[in-house]
């Protein structure tokens, strides 16, 4: 084991100190960036880190989609600054002056990546042409099995629209993809490269043609989203992608990857922040959240290969990597592919991850978390990795619960003969067993989705390029080899998932920060299309 102490990230650069020549701050001072996907988990951390570590940034244009009529783009931004925990450091640093400070650095553009030119107004396009140093495209759907029509619109067409916009504005593009575009390849070392027109299983294909075929297949599948998903998944699997997320992200890479000025950045599984904005920060449903939730259910045997790598990367490390790559692109050293991953220098295996999750759950329940059922029984039954088989140990549970529900329904149907009190109780049992059956069904679906990642494939993502940048900046460093997975998983990741992610799985709302006494408003006007 090569655990080392978790080293805190670099302290945010203060505005009082001058940027050292050659540093990221120096390289980014006065630069103008366009960023998409601000409302997502990663982009928010990237923007907040950029503002925190490069206060001299020229201007950040955020393309934000208005939410119907009631919430314009700028209001979505303001609400995020007001209530999202990711902005705590900036709120603490600037206090009442934050609106003025941000107003000088942020412009919110009402736009939509699903539309050509991101639906930006002609005069906005004219004003930005030739004045943008980099476009960072973070927008994307990260569900593993979204409606393919929507996934194509956001992940594929969206990327093409943003690439077109970059060409039109004369700016380079940083396209955020995923390391898992590697697809189903078994145990492999994945290089930082893209062979356009070659799918993960080696099939030669044309991205534009595949996109047309996919659209036709979805159309032929009809109005039912489940049928469309099946049709799209069949196409994905033919090319070696295990789900619609990696398929559409892969198609986007093949569609725009060979255009000049495009740099592809592939993070692996983006998880809770190590240090920025604070340890444990997470937002939305991520990959490890459902697995952590699974550990709180009576289901104890995860069909995972214990020695396979689970390539996790904290969100703030990804954001730091993106800032470092931004400098590279601005200084003319961009292009190609960068992996932001941990499996090549500091791998975490599934076996270790499952054991750490069980231990973290045990500690969490010991400190008062969880239900009495979890505190007194589940915590003493550690999850274990098990072999993948057709049943996964679920079938027996499912059968038992179905029988229990049938019995309850039988009693309920004989209310007139058996009496109202018994029938009432049977109704309760029936409801409870139905809820448990739905949990079992969820577990089964989740395991189907996760199987390619936790069992079938073992990836080692090469990170040579970002590691070469990692030690060159005094303020920002790529230090993934320093992560102590035990400390990270038990003290940071698991509590973070419990606070920010698992409530969403349970159908509850994740907590937000209370807004300040006066509503936060950017001092400049919204630019409309």
């Amino acid at each position, binding site marked *: 084991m090569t655990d080392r102490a978790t080293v805190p990230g670099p302290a945010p650069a203060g505005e009082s100190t001058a940027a050292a020549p050659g540093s990221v701050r120096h390289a980014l001072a006065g630069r103008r960036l366009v960023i998409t996907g601000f409302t997502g988990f990663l982009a928010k951390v990237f923007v907040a880190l950029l503002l925190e570590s490069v206060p001299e940034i020229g201007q950040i244009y955020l393309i934000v989609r208005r939410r119907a009529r009631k919430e314009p783009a700028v209001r979505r931004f303001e609400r995020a600054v007001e209530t999202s925990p990711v902005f705590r450091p900036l709120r603490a640093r600037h206090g009442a002056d934050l609106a003025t400070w941000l107003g000088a650095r942020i412009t919110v553009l009402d736009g939509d990546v699903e539309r050509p030119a991101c639906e930006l107004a002609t005069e906005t396009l004219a004003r930005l042409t030739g004045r943008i140093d980099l476009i960072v495209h973070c927008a994307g759907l990260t569900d593993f099995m979204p409606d393919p029509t929507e996934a194509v619109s956001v992940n594929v067409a969206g990327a093409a629209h943003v690439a077109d916009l970059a060409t039109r504005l004369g700016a380079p593009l940083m396209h955020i993809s995923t390391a898992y575009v590697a697809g189903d390849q078994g145990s492999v070392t994945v290089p930082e490269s893209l062979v356009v027109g070659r799918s993960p299983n080696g099939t030669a294909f044309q991205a534009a043609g595949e996109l047309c075929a996919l659209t036709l297949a979805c159309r032929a599948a009809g109005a039912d989203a489940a049928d469309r998903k099946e049709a799209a998944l069949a196409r994905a699997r033919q090319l070696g992608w295990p789900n619609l997320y990696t398929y559409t992200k892969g198609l986007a890479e093949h569609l725009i990857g060979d255009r000049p000025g495009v740099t592809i950045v592939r993070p692996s599984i983006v998880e809770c922040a190590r240090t920025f904005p604070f340890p444990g920060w997470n937002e939305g449903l991520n990959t490890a959240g459902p697995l952590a939730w699974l550990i709180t259910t009576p289901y104890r045997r995860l069909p995972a290969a214990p020695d396979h790598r689970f390539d996790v990367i904290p969100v703030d490390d990804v954001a730091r990597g993106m800032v470092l790559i931004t400098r590279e692109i601005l200084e003319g050293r961009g292009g190609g592919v960068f992996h932001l991953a941990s499996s090549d220098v500091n791998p975490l295996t599934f076996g270790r991850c499952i054991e750490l999750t*069980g231990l973290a759950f045990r500690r969490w329940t010991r400190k008062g978390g969880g239900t009495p059922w979890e505190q007194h029984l589940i915590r003493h039954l*550690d999850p274990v990795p098990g072999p993948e088989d057709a049943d996964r140990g679920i079938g027996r549970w499912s059968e038992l619960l179905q029988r229990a529900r049938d019995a309850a329904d039988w009693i309920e149907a004989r209310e007139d003969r058996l009496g109202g009190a018994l029938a009432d109780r049977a109704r309760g049992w029936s409801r409870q067993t139905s809820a448990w059956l739905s949990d079992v069904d969820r577990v089964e679906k989740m395991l189907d989705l996760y199987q390619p990642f936790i069992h079938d494939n073992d990836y080692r993502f090469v990170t040579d390029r970002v590691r070469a940048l990692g030690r060159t900046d005094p303020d920002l460093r790529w230090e993934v080899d320093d992560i102590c997975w035990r400390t990270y998983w038990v003290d940071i990741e698991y509590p973070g998932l419990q606070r920010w992610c698992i409530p969403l799985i349970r159908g509850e709302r994740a907590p937000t920060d209370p807004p300040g006494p006066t509503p936060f408003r950017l001092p400049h006007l919204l630019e409309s299309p």
Partner: protein
Amino acid sequence: MHTAAFVRAEGPLLPYGAVRAAAWLAANAQDLGSRAARLGGVALAAPFGLSDPILALRLAWGALRGTSEDRLEILGEEYWETQLRGKLVRVGQDLLERARADGHRVVLVSDHPDCVARHLAEAIRADVLVCNQLELRAGRATGRIADPLASRFGGPALQAFASAHGLSLAGSLAYGTAGTDIALLAGVGRPCAVAPTAELRRAARDLDWPVVAP
């Protein structure tokens, strides 16, 4: 030259020995099969508890072969918090406080491995911890306790330790409870038997060491 108060954890401070910790960790192995097998291994140590405590210790911790370092560390903390922290022996704590007030550095000597003993050392604000180390390979316990054993702390090991830390043994104190502590107590100028076993009580009587009973 400084002086120190050497205190054996098991007895003067803790009501339980390190074999119990091994049994607790065995009962909390990752899967049910390992729990049964490991508990069986620890049970083999029981008959030797009185006749050969060091053999018992080696057998008990040997049953944890294959346990991950993660589990030892995290459950070591849980064992301390749930099984030991609320049960510290009062008389031992009072003796330590007095020694600290008299200007002695506190050296905690424990049969428990580092993953448990470290928490006790923090709680009693020990200046130095001398404890057993479980041998690890590729992040898993090999089942061996690395030499030298803290249970045998005394004689030349004690002298080497004192010289490395600039301690005068003649002016130092030592507190122990079991027969295995005789070498430690004999090495300092001011030994003291705390709630001693019969073997240590006999030695204390023969060597005219003070005896403190709880």
